[in-house]
């Protein structure tokens, strides 16, 4: 079966984001960008499934600007077989991404769509779930273990109360959590080879998807600076203070 791995180009996890002076968003000019770490885990998992003989072909897909090609090249260098860039300079919201992915999946016909549970830039945590709903497929989110067995997949999920294992019939959507695996480094020979792997460029219009934002960003600001605390003498004083603050 084929695995479709959506990947997103995001601000690098090592970079401290700065808000634009006009409050319209995060300043991304001259900032290091790389693959969303959760998506990196998804790529790694797909490769491991391929190495285990459960997956025959891995197709990476990204929705974003031309530069997202670099992110796709990273996926190819890690071990994906081919890539599709759905190019747009517009801001795409999870619903638009999910609609595009649905259209891509209709062409690729993957047995498994595996992607990060969320992207570290907007932390939406929506794309996988929306895609499952749009495609009417079973979903296993926050995966910490994925086992493909015949025409089903067992997904161990990290939930608030501990671990939950669900068995889904394929095709299915899986979103990856942090502890699923540790992604490999792409080796230098594979980076060189990745340049020759097929990378197709499309546009949202090719799939007939309207990506007009449904949401409006009114303002983006830095989180408030944490104020220094005070020491209290005893529990009574603490309770009194909490009451005065109106939180108890």
């Amino acid at each position, binding site marked *: 079966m084929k695995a479709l791995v959506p990947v997103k180009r995001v601000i690098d996890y*090592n970079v401290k984001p700065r808000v634009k002076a006009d409050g319209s968003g995060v300043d991304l000019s001259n900032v*290091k960008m790389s693959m969303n770490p959760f998506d990196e885990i998804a790529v790694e998992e797909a490769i491991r499934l391929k190495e285990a003989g459960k997956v025959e072909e891995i197709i990476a897909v990204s929705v974003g600007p031309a530069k997202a090609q670099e992110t796709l*090249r990273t996926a190819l*260098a890690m071990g994906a077989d081919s890539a599709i860039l759905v190019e747009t300079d517009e801001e795409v919201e999870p619903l638009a991404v999910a609609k595009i992915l649905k259209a891509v999946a209709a062409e690729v016909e993957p047995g498994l769509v595996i992607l990060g549970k969320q992207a570290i830039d907007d932390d939406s945590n929506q794309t996988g779930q929306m895609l499952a709903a749009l495609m009417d497929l079973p979903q296993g989110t926050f995966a910490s273990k994925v086992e493909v067995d015949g025409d089903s997949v067992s997904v161990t999920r990290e939930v608030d109360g501990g671990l939950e294992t669900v068995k889904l019939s394929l095709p299915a959507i899986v979103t990856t959590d942090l502890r699923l695996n540790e992604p490999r*480094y792409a080796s*230098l020979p594979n*980076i060189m080879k990745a340049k020759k792997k097929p990378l197709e460029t499309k546009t949202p219009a090719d799939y007939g998807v309207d990506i007009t934002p449904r949401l409006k960003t009114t303002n983006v600001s830095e989180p408030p600076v944490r104020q220094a605390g005070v020491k209290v003498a005893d529990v009574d004083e603490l309770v009194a203070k909490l009451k005065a603050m109106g939180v108890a």
Partner: protein
Amino acid sequence: MASTLPSRRDVDFLLHDWLKSDRLQDRETIDALLDLAEKLANEQFLTHYKQADAEEPFLDASGVHICPPIGEALRQYAELGLFSASFPEEAGGLGLPYLAYSAAFLFFSAANIATAAYPMLTAANARLILEFGNANQVATFARPQIAGDWFGTMCLSEPQAGSSLADVRTRAVADGEDELGARYRLAGNKMWISGGDQDVSENIVHLVLAKIPDPDGTMPLGTAGISLFIVPKILPDGTRNDVSVAGLNHKMGYRGTANCLLNFGENEGATGWIVGEPGQGLRQMFLMMNEARISVGLGAAALGYRSYRLSVDYARERLQGRPIGERAGPPVPIIEHPDVRRMLLQQKSYVEGALALCLYCAQLVDDEADPDAAALLGLLTPVAKTWPSEYGLAANDIAIQIHGGYGYTRDFDVEQLWRDNRLNPIHEGTTGVQGVDLLGRKILRDGSALPILERAIRNTADAASSVEGLADHARALLAAWQAIGDVLTVLRESDDRAAFDNATLFLWAFGHVVVAWLWLDQAVAAAGCGAQSGHDANFVEGKLRACRFFFETELPKTDAWLAVVRSGTDVASGASEDIF
């Protein structure tokens, strides 16, 4: 905290905007290589920097053991294909330009120079065999090193023969011939062998300089009798060669690099195969020396660079004192104090200047087929080895000063960076040896490369003279170059021996002029960076400011050094040893 490794933005600027690396390799590939290097250096090399300093290599009956994370990092380095990066494809390499490989290696050297020493020596070893060895030697001994399975060493020095290789006593006696070439039995002691033994690689390939005795058993005098031999730790038939570790050297820095005294031929004689013809050993070594010496300079620049980055971070965070004249108010970050800024700019001008020099030379290695580039590389090599070693170290020294008392403790990295870098003015030819090499071999004996350098300097000065704010520097550079020429006229007329009395001072002055030239060239490139280059205004201003700093505070020092050289003073050379 942001990375303390050298600034990727600076490396990108030097490669793409300044040296136009596109002509050697597409940007996408270089970027991917540098991304990988930065990541691996941060995650696998930097992480055991202090541990490998504290847990020195030790020797037991089974050999030398090195701090385990070094082996883990090097296994990753090998698996990712980094050993093979700059080797030609027909030799199992990836054929990347030496410039790109050097830029990548900068990050490993900055993160952990002692760990990076193993692949550096291995690459130098494999390159020598590739260049001068026969096909079977290449297949047997170079290929596994290019794959990173085996590591290599360079066995030149002996306890009594360090800088003076003419005095080596290791003997090589003919012992027949096989498919690997003419076989010899070697006996002797080799000192300061980095990577001489370790428990990481499957095998170790020693390249050994030794002399073949004359038929009457006497050893030939001088360097002409020196030959080069391949002596593996484990022989191709799987048995141990007669090579043993006589002891480990306990060093000030570079502690993760096991440094050994090796005994060859304690028993039946160590088996070795000659590389090329007898008597060619030193010549072969020297032909490969350019790259090894640039690597040393690059490592020194890397160590200085990291200490600069740590200094900037510390100076921004450390609150101490108030601006002069103010007694109240909160303490300010020390970066606001003029003397701290002076030190930071001095570091910046040293480390970015040193890096530019090394990358400029790395690019000349890629262009070596062009005779002018090869000649210029030969002339600049002693500078690329020495200047970063001396001034990278000076930047390390300033870093300790900026950190104050904390910098003197082992809680911070800057003292270790200083200790690590203190080796670089010593190995691969000391500063004194480089001074004699520059003035003697590279200038007075055959000065044909000087006009090539002069042309390059004039080109830069021409370009700079039409850039706002750089015209004065262009004039100062030409005047300094003129002063070098004037001193050389005097030296050419003085007697041979006296010309060398102050060769090191000449090297300092020459080095400063070369770095001033490259600073001006960087400034021209930075000033020409438009908005589309992606460099922000502060980056460009930083380059221009550091250039100005170098011209205003460093270049004038050359006058004092050249005055001493020009005077021909024998104050040191003529001193009686009894006064000491």
